[in-house]
């Protein structure tokens, strides 16, 4: 249950402002793809178009095609709600539901749409999802406590557990470690390595070492100047991007000689 994404000539707008211009790329299943690039170049914006979260912003829209195994996610008869169930997302700031217990947080996505689930199935799902997110041993004794009582790193892993509990095909992560300490960051990076066996993973990161450590493919985005749209400069195997990229801008950026 892992699928491939093809973006074809995608342009992304906030109202009249074109934030991302003409991006085409292929994201392979069962692999980790990293998006890197300077701030404001549209990494988050592009990531959010992959599961139709972009259109949640008032006035925002997308042109072009994003295909999941050949099915256009922006086709006329596609329900964005169904897309988001298939393509899960982890945000930059941990955002467990503060009014829910840890257990209910994990089950939040599953219980949507009034889907019934028996208690034993729920227990099993909670355990397997929390184990999948490397959080089980830390929280198994306090599943009924509020999720907001966990540390930042634990909260982020809870959010990952919540995302994988709905069994998506793809997991999108927007700087999932930027609010975390190095230990929690390592825990999440290990987790990403585990998850890629089952899921297609896309991760945005500002941390070059992290991109180099966790990803198989890396996409470098750049922006010509403020007010200009962001563009995909190049995408290649991570090793290639970090050792011998085709573009000079990429080389400058990954070697820290940027701007």
């Amino acid at each position, binding site marked *: 249950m892992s699928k491939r994404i093809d973006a074809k000539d995608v342009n992304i707008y906030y109202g009249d402002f074109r934030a991302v211009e003409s991006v085409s790329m292929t994201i392979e299943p069962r692999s980790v793809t990293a998006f890197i690039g300077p701030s404001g170049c549209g990494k988050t914006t592009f990531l959010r178009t992959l599961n139709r979260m972009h259109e949640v912003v008032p006035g925002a829209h997308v042109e072009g095609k994003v295909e999941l195994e050949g099915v256009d996610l922006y086709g006329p008869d596609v329900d964005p709600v169904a897309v988001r169930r298939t393509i899960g997302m982890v945000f930059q700031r941990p955002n467990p539901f503060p009014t829910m217990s840890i257990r209910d947080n994990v089950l939040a996505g599953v219980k949507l749409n009034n889907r019934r689930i028996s208690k034993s199935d729920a227990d099993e799902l909670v355990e397997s999802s929390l184990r999948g997110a490397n959080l089980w041993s830390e929280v198994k004794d306090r599943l009924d406590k509020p999720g907001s*009582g966990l540390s930042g790193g634990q909260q982020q892993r809870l959010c990952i557990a919540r995302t994988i509990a709905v069994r998506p095909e793809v997991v999108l992560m927007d700087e999932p470690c930027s609010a975390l300490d190095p230990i929690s960051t390592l825990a999440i990076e290990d987790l990403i390595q585990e998850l890629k066996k089952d899921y297609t993973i896309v991760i945005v990161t500002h941390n070059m070492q992290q991109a180099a450590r966790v990803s198989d493919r890396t996409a470098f985005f750049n922006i010509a100047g403020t007010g200009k749209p962001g563009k995909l400069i190049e995408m290649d195997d991570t090793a290639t991007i970090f050792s011998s990229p085709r573009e000079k801008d990429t080389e400058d950026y990954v070697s820290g000689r940027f701007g």
Partner: protein
Amino acid sequence: MTITDSPPSGEAPPGPRGRVVRRRASGDTERGFSRIFRWIATGAGALILAVLAAVALFLIARGWPAITATPAELADSVPRYPDDTSLVAYVGPLVFGTLLAAVLALLLATPVGMGIALFISHYAPRRLAQGLGYLVDLLAAIPSVIYGLWGFLVLAPVLKPVWFWLGENASWFPLFAGKVSATGKSIATVAVVLAVMVLPIITAVSREVFLQTPKLHEEAALALGATRWEMVRTAVLPFGRSGVISAAMLGLGRALGETMAVLMILSPGFTYSLHLLEAGNHQTIAAYIANDFPEASGLAVNTLIATGLALFVITLAVNMLARWIVARRKEFSGAN
């Protein structure tokens, strides 16, 4: 979001203890406006407490003669006071009528108010939402005597056929049993008018609360594949829960104390009847006091003030109940 176990801010910097204390004492940390503002804030808080205490004292002191009077004395000096009735037995139906009208109004107004608030905050296009929000604020500013007039002259005739229909077809339901009032001057009509009156405040407060739902949590729900309604249910409503309770309690406060509209519409009576469609069964404390006060003298005034004390206690109790409900699940409230 995270566990806060960091030391409270304002902690003295490390250094010789004596210096720290001296700096505090010389007022280095707080001067000028900051200090004046603290005095104003403290003063305002104290003033509220003082006013509250003054009102309570007044009610107790002036109600005391009626509270200690014998049923015979009360029957002598209070008009229409039934024989051999203690003050508690006399005030009881009034308390009942007050609570009944206010609770019914709240039951009607809260869901509708929440619905309108949600529509404005999460469903309506932005333009429409702004206009609607403005309109709701305007409604809150209409004086209650206007609502009373409108309720009596317009709403009551409109509701009458509804009450008759209910009386005929739903009289198996205890609340709709009994003889339907031909004039519509029943507690049911009062409850609807009160509901309309408290609707704006409930809507306005709920809307503010719903608008403050963190984007973060709304997007968390949407990214899990929630429809808009599911997003509202998982993120907006739980977040707004305590705010909605506060809104409802504000509305309840207004409904409990509402005088004019009740006075103008309700045909009064002193029973514990649950027949909402009958006239002449109920009366509220506020309307009772307003109605009888101009003619009252002596012990009758004390009796009215004693009923006022009952209203005061009810209102306080309602507010404390609301606080308790809000605080009960603070852990899960999103405040941490």
